């Protein structure tokens, strides 16, 4: 059983099923993206009990009983609107993962410094290079 965005699900993944696969294929929560499938790019970031976690290299059975939050559970978070307002996305494929990481950052540090933003977000790659505006979106998320 895993709790995803406040709902309990009985997930029957085969042995070796990752959390990202279970979310996307079994629960149709496709906001979580798989871009590298080996934990290098951050596109698959979700929160597991509040901690940013790479769901593409997390086996689903290891989160049994945990609370998982995906982008679908954060749609009303002001960070989403802040990303849109700052134009902090281009193709948008990495964006849900960026937002999940950003939410985890501001949950712990509501007014992060530039250094703290860069440190927390360095694991989320964006090939379009939206980084300057991602930084701006996180800096201004409460505006």
């Amino acid at each position: 059983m895993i709790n995803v965005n406040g709902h309990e699900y009985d997930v029957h993944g085969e042995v070796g099923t990752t959390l990202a696969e279970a979310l996307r294929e079994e629960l149709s929560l496709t906001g979580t993206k798989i871009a590298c499938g080996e934990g290098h790019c951050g596109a698959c970031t979700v929160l597991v009990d509040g901690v940013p976690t790479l769901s593409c290299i997390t086996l689903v059975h290891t989160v049994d009983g945990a609370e998982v939050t995906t982008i679908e559970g954060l749609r009303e978070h002001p960070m989403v609107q802040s990303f849109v307002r700052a134009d902090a996305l281009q193709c948008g494929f990495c964006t849900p993962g960026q937002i999940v990481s950003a939410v985890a950052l501001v949950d712990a540090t509501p007014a992060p410094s530039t250094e703290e933003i860069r440190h927390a977000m360095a694991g989320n790659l964006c090939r379009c290079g939206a980084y300057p505006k991602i930084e701006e979106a996180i800096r201004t998320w409460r505006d």
Partner: protein
Amino acid sequence: MARLIRTEKEVEGRYEEVWLVVEEDALEQWPAGAREIVGQPHVRVDGAQRARGEAIYTADLQLNGMLHTAVLRSPHPRAKVTRIDLAPALALPGVHAAIGPNDIPQLTGDCTFQGQAIAAVCADSLAQARAAVRAIDVDFEVLEPLLDPDEAVRRGELVDEEPRVKERGDYERGLAEADVVVEAEFRTQVVLHNSMETHQAVVQWVADGVEVHISTQYIWGIRDGVASGLGLPPDKVRAICHYMGGGFGSKNSPDDYTFIAAELAKRTGRAVKCALTRREENTAAGNRNATIQRLTIGARSDGTLTALGGEFVNAVGWSGWSSGTEGPMQMLYACPNVKTTTYGAKLNLPPMKAFRAPGFVEGTFGLEALLDELASKLDLDPLELRWRNHADTDLADERPYSSKNLIECYRRAEPHWERRHEVRARSTDTVKRGVGMASQIWYGGGGPPSYAWIRVGSDGRATVVTAMQDIGTGTKTAMAQIAAEELGIPFEHVTVTVGDSDRGPFASISAGSSTTPSMGPAVRAAAADAKRQIIEIAAQRHHLEERVLDIRGGQVVSSDGNLSAPVGDLLGLLENAQILGKGARGPNPTGMQVLTFGVQVAEVAVDIETGEVWVDRIAAIHDVGRVINPLGASSQIEGGIIQGIGHTLSEERLVDPKTGRILTTSLDAYKLPTIADVPEIVSELVDEPDAHLTNLGSKGLGEPPIIPTAAAIANAIRDATGADVRSLPISREEMLRALREAEAKERRAAPARV
């Protein structure tokens, strides 16, 4: 009236002669400057869908009964399959079909580069398909690969029959007239697009045709390419791409994965997805090819260029095209004597694909870095040197420019350039600081054909319908702005529908910085057509002359101020009737060269003990005609510069020189820039409409910002340290090599000790 013309069409710097039917563009350009909607910053219309994880990319599709594919790709750069048995794969659970060499033209046992597709299996799950591919029994005869581009040129192994030779004036005489000659060899590496969404397609057969969901930059290229590959009439192929996760030039055509999915879908009667893994993406999905550039510049002592010469070797790989690496040398400066020879070396390496200004990124690095060596030798200011050699007409093409504001770019760069004294003064014993600049020239004019439709409903709201794609550049947003501006209705009242070849007219490729300059004028023409009809209806309804009526802010208004009624009130009379406007992109100006220009100024710090380089600041000033959305434009510039920084400092596809195997197949090994690598970026656009180009005067901005970045950084390094970097990426090794070389040069130049 429709007019048939024979004209040149340019994409990514390559020209072809085509027949076109064009409709005269009757609309006058809007005056220069920001308007109510066009020229104002707008957040992207689909930003929320993308940010909220609602946008469905090809990667997210889950069609009923959909099967997943894994592909057996050659692990060797050159090998022959001597034996292959698919039976063990077919015997595994969940497997539905397997195909091998020659089942379709895209599968072969004659492997000429690592990553070439040999066989493919589809299964209920991706894990089952991968297990099945591992079970395929295959033997290879491994052959000696050709990996060295110079060796390929010596052997005449070229992708084109002949090298491309371009000469104007008398190069040898130009050299003889020079007071100073500088020459050097530059090398650029292979870089990988690494779009976040890998190349992929989902194909299903429907009646006597196919539906192709695909991550693409060119919906119509997919329709036509799949149709010709499968022997179908074009309209039996429906190409669909509503959202796509990046392309950068690598997703302009249907490739092996599309045809593999189509064949497996045909055999199984199911929808079949074929998606490249990240490791396949880093091997077989295309690349910016490496180059070798042997360059010579001759100049008089006042800096006037007398001769430019270059031998360029594009290490193209097994197939692809030999891009215009010589372009900047041919086009950027007013030099009367220029001779370039460009070879496209055919190698046992994965094929190149267009990557954001192919050729010009590489060629600008060599040319602009050597120009600064010349400036140093002549003791001239690099900005002054460029100014002196400004080209007033295109000498390479002998056509006038449709518009050119490079001088204005230089003028606006001056305050950034002036910072160099202050920046250098902040150097320490071990960390040296400096400022460098480089110019940019590139295409970006777009062209016909491109079409748009607009429907205005009885609520007075409009929908733009066209089968283009928005690859993340914000094209939908720009089109909504253009439509709203022309129609005179609020921006929020316009929806833009794209992404489906069955649901809209032909639209431009999103490559070659061409989407906005191709599609924008068609959308404006469609909006004007709809507006004309609305005014005709309003005139009849209100018994007024058409010439006194206009639409502003969503209201039909009369010039005497007596009438001001919402468009929805008027059209509401018609209930379900719709006003349908259509528009076509007019021709490019005859006999003119349509180009984009710009300049970037970089500030760097170099640790001379470790060879580490930091980019602290880049100022970018570009001239791309009228700016539609300054917010989206600044994002494009930042993105281009950041990719340029990766290209300059960290990214490199490494190949084992012994086996020819690719070593950098993961995002751990291949170093993309992260948020921590980003400097301060200041961007500015000249925003002067090109008076000769379409009803908008807009050019494209996708590619220009990546072009001068590497050269500007290299020149800043030279300013900081005196070292000439000659090879990309500027790794610590390259930086230390250049520093040692500079030191040795200085020792040689110093007077002998007594």
